[in-house]
């Protein structure tokens, strides 16, 4: 890369450091949260520079988008009306003795990281790519070579949603006071775009950067935006409705795919020969949908109403 690239990287790194510092040190909590969201967006650029477009997509949608929405709406609950004085404090002095330890650790770490040979598994991935059923290496790793990680990860999402439900009911009204009157119209306008982008990413995933994770993340972020724009949350926690089924679908299908291998006399998660491609596509659709819906469920911050929201206004 040329000098321009080096300068760009340097500026990007400086900006990221400044934003991270702001996120952890800024006096104003709102300022800190916004810094963190911008930090996520710039990280997406860094991922692009590091030739990781899949991560860039996921970071923009999840790291900045979904996490940002979560943080902002939590902030609305954490700060009292009178200014942005926060209520939650814990003495920090007890942690003091940790800092020298951390600094020493970091010194050793940097020294160690500089000497990394980083052999990587690129050759192994390429050698097995033909047998994996997909053309895009990251998708092959996620849904074939290391499918067990993906299963547990979808499990973590579902588990997080159940945990949040277990803490109590979703607050009502859910949506904070509108920061901008333009948001509802914008949200309605953008949602179809989000759906299209998600579908495109999912379709592209088998041969190019994209796939279930970014697609699900984009769709989930779009749904959260709709919610911010004033839409009623449509997920219900009723035992009789379909939502519990739909939320569990991704984990259930991954489990079924895993067990199917064993039942057919092969290893856990071994796809029958020749079926890897279509099976992975099926699992990707289920995983992507699960990611989108579960991200949305995480945003609700509590168990949604069982049957429907009555008027939430005053």
């Amino acid at each position, binding site marked *: 890369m040329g000098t321009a690239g080096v300068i760009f990287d340097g500026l990007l790194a400086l900006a990221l450091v400044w934003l991270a510092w702001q996120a952890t040190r800024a006096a104003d909590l709102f300022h800190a949260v916004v810094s963190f969201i911008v930090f996520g967006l710039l990280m997406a650029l860094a991922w692009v520079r590091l030739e990781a477009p899949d991560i860039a997509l996921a970071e923009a949608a999840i790291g900045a988008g979904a996490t940002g929405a979560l943080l902002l709406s939590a902030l609305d609950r954490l700060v009292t009306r009178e200014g942005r004085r926060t209520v939650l404090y814990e003495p920090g002095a007890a942690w003091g003795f940790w800092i020298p330890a951390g600094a020493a650790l970091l010194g*050793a770490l940097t020294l160690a990281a500089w000497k990394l040979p980083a052999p990587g598994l690129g050759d192994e991935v390429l050698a097995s790519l033909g047998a994996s059923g997909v053309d895009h290496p990251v998708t092959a790793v996620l849904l074939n070579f290391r499918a067990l990680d993906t299963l547990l990860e979808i499990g*973590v999402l579902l588990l997080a949603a159940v945990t949040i439900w277990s803490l*109590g009911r979703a607050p009502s009204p859910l949506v904070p006071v509108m920061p901008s009157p333009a948001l509802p119209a914008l949200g309605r306008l953008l949602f179809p775009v989000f759906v299209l982008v998600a579908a495109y990413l999912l379709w592209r995933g088998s041969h190019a950067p994209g796939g279930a994770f970014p697609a699900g993340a984009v769709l989930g972020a779009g749904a959260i935006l709709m919610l911010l724009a004033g839409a009623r949350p449509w997920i219900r926690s009723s035992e009789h409705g379909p939502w519990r*089924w739909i939320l569990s679908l991704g984990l259930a299908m991954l489990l079924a795919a895993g067990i199917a291998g064993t039942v057919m006399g092969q*290893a856990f998660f071994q796809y029958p020969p020749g079926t890897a491609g279509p099976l992975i596509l099926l699992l990707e659709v289920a995983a992507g949908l699960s990611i989108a819906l579960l991200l949305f469920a995480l945003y609700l911050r509590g168990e949604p109403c069982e049957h429907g929201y009555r008027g939430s206004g005053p």
Partner: protein
Amino acid sequence: MIPGTAGPVVLFSLPLAAAIVVFIRPRWSVPVTLGTGAVLLAVALWLVGVVLQQGGWRQDIGGWTAPLGIGWNVDGLSATMLLLNAAVGLAGAAFHAARPAPPATARDPRFFWPLWLFLWGGLNALFLAADLFNVYVALEFVSIASVGLIGLVGGSAQAAAWRYLLATLLGSTIYLLGVALLYGRYAALDLALLAEGVEPDLVTAVAAALMTLGLLLKAAIFPLHFWLPAAHGRAPPAVSAVLSAVVIAAGYYLLVRLWFGPFAPLLGTGVATLLGLLGAAAVLWGGLLALMQRHLKMLIAYSTVSQFGYGLLVFPLVAAGAAHPAWAGAVMLVLAHGLAKAALFLAAGAIILRHGIGRLEALGGDQRGAVVAWVAFAVASASLVGLPPTGGFVGKWWLAQAALASGGYFWLAVLMLGTAFTAAYLWRALQAAVEPGWESGGEPPTLSPALGLGALLLALSAAALGLAAPLIARLLDAGPGVSG
């Protein structure tokens, strides 16, 4: 295909599938959970039998071998932990099912059952995992499920859950940093593959230090135990039982896996002594604090801090050359502690339900309805202290033998002193039963006899472990400690 490979598939998938079922159909919760538990216990027992017969094995997931694919590791150590998890999980579920309905004013823990099954599945995934990143995902899985279960009762338990969550997330992040360094150095995440290729250089040492630090935080080893007592003391009884008996043991399990696997070349006398000293400090400090507690569950929670200190004594003893008895002794202690500690928490739960309060001085007087629970408490105490012929006794005996054989008299003294502390604080708890207590005046609440029964069964199995000592020794022969 090796016979027995279906076992891990069931142990991994069944709890997760049951969690989904219970989430979708809450009214089936109790039968589904108890049925799942019975199957899991049977499969874990069967797996132990298979390992006894043919030794351990590794099975690949998806037909991909390491370094590309990930695998499951089945050997004496993991089979033991899977069995512990199944026993405690089933007893805890039975306790929770048999507890009287909470008063109308209290929050109804609606999502206990799916969280319980998720925790169970996450722990099984962790004990099976042979891949460092898979371990990370499983660790986070277990953390979230534990946080959900601790926070279920609301109130101050949620603050305890928050502290636990932050400590455990920091622990996993530091652990993951170590994994990243190892990957950059060796391009491998598989435990066995790393064990073959590891060289004692700087990168590996830093990675080992980071991963150990992260796991010490998760296992609440002194001085990183600060989050444990509140979290374990405030959770519902069944949750305290599984957290103290199995979740903490999971952190310790990984430490043992790493130091007797990939990091074995780094385990010099210095490192081993440092870990041993941490363990010694934990034994004494935890014991002292347990002695000073006034609440029954807090006493048991501090006892967990103390008891896992013994586990760390394995490092200096193995480094000093007494590999076999030290190794078997430490694992035996963790197993016996798990069963006994779960029994203590469940018994304490039943006793506190009977008296309506957990202060030690209030627990005396009329014991109708809590007799079985007190008997379970006494039997579990006997094992925790290490009276022969309990599992606790055998574990300590093996550790003492290792200390004598390698001339580690300091570690022997720690063992003795820790035992004295354990006896003292458990005696204090048992003494509370026969003192006058606070009479509430009213008729005691009617409790299901099943409440104390699960605790009694766990306590009896902790005691009976001593009789199965030769079998356990043979099971652990297949473990990593002997080859290392």
